[in-house]
């Protein structure tokens, strides 16, 4: 399928297909952000942990994109990852945010993992058998990711003044992107109506409780909720990720492993 045909088909697809694609976009972009950290991790163990988490997220992406490709008649997951413009990806702004420092990487992961851990747990009961099967695996993977991010955020927050300051700065900088995770739109509402996925807003209460406990343990302050920063999409951050992700495919069309 050509890029244009693909984007037209996707835009007209049913809400469940679009929801699957959106979550594929989310995990692909976050996986790529983590891959950008490789060779920069503070220790060999951390290098392996980040690579493993990025690999799990990429595996989740491939499962989700594979299902989308089947539903719209595309060739496969590569079509969706490499055959679209940055403007056609719809990840939440949170996962696009750059790897400012190690604290920012771990805080971004924590805010994300608390959300997706809750999401996968609910999707386990999805009326869509495929999504329920993916969720059953992903919830186990995400549990480990969340434990890892929690350990780091608590360690850094409750540590030296410099580490505390930088971790609080990361929480403050990323907090404005949280609200978007819990905003419903016609796609999420239609999926919720069919029993395929929970409403986005329904995940907020559990998220607040768990994040509150972790921030407390980390001696970090919970920022006040603020309006989502207005941004033209695709943002420069997303364009950077997609450009880098697709570079090999652009230079060597049809390349295979």
């Amino acid at each position, binding site marked *: 399928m050509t890029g244009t045909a693909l984007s037209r088909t996707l835009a007209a697809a049913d809400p469940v297909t679009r929801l699957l694609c959106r979550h594929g976009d989310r995990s692909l972009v976050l996986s790529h952000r983590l891959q950008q950290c490789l060779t920069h991790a503070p220790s060999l*163990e951390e290098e392996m942990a980040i690579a493993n988490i990025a690999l799990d997220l990429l595996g989740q992406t491939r*499962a989700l994109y594979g299902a989308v490709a089947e539903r719209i008649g595309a060739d496969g997951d590569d079509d969706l990852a490499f055959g679209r413009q940055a403007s056609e990806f719809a990840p939440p702004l949170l996962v696009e945010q750059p790897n400012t420092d190690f604290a920012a990487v771990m805080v971004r992961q924590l805010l994300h993992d608390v959300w997706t851990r809750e999401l996968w747990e609910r999707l386990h009961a999805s009326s869509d058998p495929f999504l329920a099967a993916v969720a059953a695996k992903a919830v186990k993977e995400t549990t480990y990711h969340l434990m890892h991010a929690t350990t780091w955020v608590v360690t850094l927050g409750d540590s030296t003044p410099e580490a505390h300051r930088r971790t609080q700065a990361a929480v403050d900088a990323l907090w404005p992107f949280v609200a978007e995770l819990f905003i419903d739109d016609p796609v999420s509402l239609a999926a919720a109506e069919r029993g395929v996925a929970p409403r986005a807003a329904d995940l907020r209460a559990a998220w607040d409780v768990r994040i509150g406990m972790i921030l407390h343990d980390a001696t970090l302050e919970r920022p006040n909720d603020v309006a989502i920063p207005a941004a033209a999409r695709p943002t420069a951050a997303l364009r950077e990720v997609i450009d880098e992700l697709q570079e090999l495919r652009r230079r060597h069309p049809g390349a295979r492993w």
Partner: protein
Amino acid sequence: VTATPAQIAAAVPDPEMPEVTLGDLGIVRMVEVGSGCVTVTITPTYLGCPAVEVMAADIVAALQQAGWDRVDVQTSLSPAWSTAWITSEGRAKLGAAGIVPPPLGPDLHHALAELVPCPRCASRRTRRRSLFGSSPCREAFVCEGCGEPFERVKPV
């Protein structure tokens, strides 16, 4: 005695831990034989497990060598793979290879808090270095008794 297709598929070594077979790990879920064609259903340990494609190719090669020309390998996600599916023989082989088998209990927090004896010197003075080891299914430890690193299969 000729081995059945189910026995052949189950005997294929795991690409990342060749000391154990795909049967030992509970990865081979079903083997069906119908008019000269074998269909093998496997389940990935983790969604991003890079070994799945190698496993499928190895199963095809093993069955073809035994004379089964038409082999189809299917991947199934549900029910999700669990370390509880590793056979007792598989657990023994892992231990003999210096990889600590996963804990049996279903409680993840208990499993992560327990002391893990060193498979080399049996010292209980071991520390978890990372929840993430050299493959998606393993975590990394170091033994303060003998100073050596080792890995355990992560409970999922």
